[in-house]
């Protein structure tokens, strides 16, 4: 069986202007949502606070629960229905992080049972993160993102051209650059941005066009996924950061396969326009791209629908990331190569084609 006919030839690169605009709009909407949500994006892992998951034996609603929380002054907590339709499970989130040994979950249960009756409320889950640990976890998550980016940037700078010099220069510039900035006392979030800027600038001057395309694509993917999170009113926690890093890996995987094909076709040395080669390469790998995204998407969708509330946000991040990652390797990473070539003139392409 075949979905994609071998002689398929869709003009992907011809639609790159439209794709760029679409990406830009999505990123801007996402960023706007991010700014609008502000610190409410942080789950308790990062912001600190308490989440208590309660199961009621009979149907109820947030307003009634709120009533029950009044005596202990928690009626300003966020109360949210959780889990599937017909399940009487609610999440209660407060900023309170009891570091003293106050029996918050017991108090909560007792108070609610006074309203609902004996043995009608079960505490299924309690997560309390104090401010100190919240800060630690924030730091850990940032460090994870930071080191992953650093390693991946160095890897791809070597991967595509496979020349030692540019990769060594890149690695040196990155390490020295971020070490220097760290000495100056720059925080990790700014360091991450700095590392990205250094990577892009290095790619530019060392003429690592493939690496530049790949890095741009992964920034694109992460921005859109994060934006989707903000729009869907979800919260960031450690598992979501894990999902984001996985998406980075996945999206690069896709990009590497398309880029490998482009370079293989260039080596074949047919006298063709660069854009044409790129488009042909995308079409040749299209079948694989769609199949792999398809199977990954199938399992992630299964997880999203059937995996239950605890893993829901994680699956959501993966779902968005896989779709965007596939899109970006076709519509973002490759067109950047073309834009690069167009800027430097087509002379180099012909030279490459001849050799």
């Amino acid at each position: 069986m075949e979905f994609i006919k071998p002689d398929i030839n869709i003009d992907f690169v011809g639609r790159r202007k439209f794709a760029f605009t679409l990406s830009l709009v999505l990123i801007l909407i996402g960023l706007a949502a991010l700014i609008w949500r502000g610190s409410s994006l942080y789950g308790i892992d990062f912001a600190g606070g308490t989440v208590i998951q309660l199961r009621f034996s009979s149907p109820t609603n947030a307003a009634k629960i709120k009533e029950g929380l009044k005596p202990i002054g928690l009626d300003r907590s966020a109360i949210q229905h959780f889990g599937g339709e017909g399940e009487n499970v609610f999440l209660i989130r407060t900023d309170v992080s009891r570091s003293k040994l106050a029996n918050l979950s017991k108090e909560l249960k007792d108070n609610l049972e006074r309203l609902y009756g004996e043995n009608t409320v079960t505490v299924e889950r309690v997560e309390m993160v104090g401010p100190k640990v919240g800060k630690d976890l924030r730091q850990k998550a940032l460090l994870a993102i930071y080191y992953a980016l650093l390693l991946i940037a160095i890897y791809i700078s070597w991967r595509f051209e496979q020349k030692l010099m540019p990769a060594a220069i890149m690695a040196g510039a990155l390490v020295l650059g971020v070490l220097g900035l760290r000495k100056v006392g720059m925080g990790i979030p700014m360091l991450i941005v700095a590392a990205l800027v250094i990577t892009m600038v290095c790619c530019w001057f060392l003429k690592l066009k493939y690496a530049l395309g790949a890095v741009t694509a992964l920034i694109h993917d992460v921005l859109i996924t994060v934006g989707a999170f903000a729009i869907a009113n979800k919260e960031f926690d450690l598992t979501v950061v894990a999902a984001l890093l996985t998406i980075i890996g996945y999206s690069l995987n896709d990009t590497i396969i398309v880029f490998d094909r482009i370079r293989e076709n260039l080596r074949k040395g047919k006298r063709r326009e660069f854009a044409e080669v790129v488009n042909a390469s995308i079409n040749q790998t299209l079948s694989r791209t769609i199949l792999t995204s398809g199977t990954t998407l199938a399992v992630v969708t299964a997880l999203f629908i059937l995996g239950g509330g605890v893993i829901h946000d994680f699956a959501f991040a993966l779902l968005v990331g896989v779709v965007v990652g596939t899109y970006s390797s076709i519509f973002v990473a490759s067109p950047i190569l073309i834009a690069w070539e167009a800027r430097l003139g087509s002379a180099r392409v012909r030279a490459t084609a001849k050799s």
Partner: protein
Amino acid sequence: MKDLRWRAALVLAVFVVALVYLLPTLGEELPEWWIKFFPDKKINLGLDLQGGMHLVLEVESDKAVENTVERFAQEMKGEMGTAHIRFRLIERQGRDGVRLLLPKEQDWQQVADLLKNKFPLLKVKDRTLVQDQVEVLLRIEESQVSHIKKLAVDQGLETIRNRIDQFGVSEPDIRTQGQNRILIQLPGIKDPQRAIDLIGKTALLEFKLVDEQHSVAEAEKGRVPAGDKIYYSRKVDPVTGQVRRSAYLLKDRTLMTGEYLTNAEVRIDSQYNRPYVALSFDDRGGKLFEKITGENVKKRLAIVLDDNVYSAPVIRDRISGGNAIIEGQFTMDEAKDLAVVLRAGSLPAPVQILEERTVGQSLGRDSIRKGLISMAVGGVLVVIFMVVYYGGSGIIADLALILNIVLIMAALAGFGATLTLPGIAGIILTIGMAVDANVLIFERVREELRLGKTPRAALDTGYSRATWTIVDANVTTLIAAVVLLQFGTGPVKGFAITLSLGIAASMFTAIFGTRLLFDYLLQKRRMKTLSI
């Protein structure tokens, strides 16, 4: 041919070893001889799957330093008394200092000798003459301070371990984390709140005299007599849950602490059928208690635990024999837990809960069920898809996929790694991504076949061209996984583990394993066409 046999043997061996490691997890009961010779470890389930509690405590180790210094100050008063040196004031200053005021300067040499002999840890930092009196500032050295702090954390850990052991939790994991934190994991715990109460109690037992000369009411208005302090008793009404507090005015000086305790156990008061806690002291404690009670007959002695007054009975007579009781309106559980914490000893410094994550057992079971269902549904979708799309070759890819999952599970059991809910998600993700290797190879083979190559040649080119791409496309995901392994906590680490295992296993199964089957079919079965 020979080469084929070797490869087949290798794959088979890997499969069998994997099954051996996996069997304990799958089987209910293993026969005796198996346990003797083969691994019998089941896959470790994370707290999010089996239910349980994860706690991070911070030991307020500065308090331990304060307590030590405070004790020094008290002891110093006693020593100065015995040596007949007059002093105006001895008090703790800040966390690690003692301030000393002497009325006469000529006493100083004597004091210096006494300090040197009895309190070698305290060093003189400053000595000034203020209007005929000498003011001396003593301080514990920084290296000693950190030693005391470390000791407090170690002792705290030990005490908590004792308490948990007596409480009865199977396979608790208790260890220090960083400088002053203690990480506690209690799998399968039924009553988390009770465990927290038990772990977190400082359990500092003190005996203090009630000041009956002054009125509590006056003191509560802010006029606390010198050397006194207000303490409260807390009584929880079992019906309404309301807390009643009543105030006691106690002498600040502690006559005795719980350090001499040898045992504490619950007994039932036969008259009112109420539980109480009976204490026994060691020899020194018994004598001290006898002296205290003998000197204070007809006075009230308050029993204070963690700054709460439990009872303040009148001493009727000298009590010898080293026994005492703590009464209060306990429930049976409360009395039991109190006995446990008293037996296990007090914490050298109070602890604070920094992080708590508790998952009920039913939610854990639910998570396992939902995780397995999504895994099954996702897996079946992928398996069916591969067969429909690639025919016979799809079946080969599916076999590789099944081997892959077996390998991940076996590695989890073999390495004693922990499977968490995100870990299950990692396996599910691997199912989707592992077939990518085969998709890449098969697509390449199809292309080669279209160019008119024989199945054998097409397979050769397909595998050799795709392998490099597969390997290093996986490297990027592996980088992410390894970084997560480094920085992740519990559940996320579980994800990183299954993801990296899955990637590693998929290289073996999807490249090496499938190639073996194809070679077998082409060489041994002399298959002419390729179902792909």
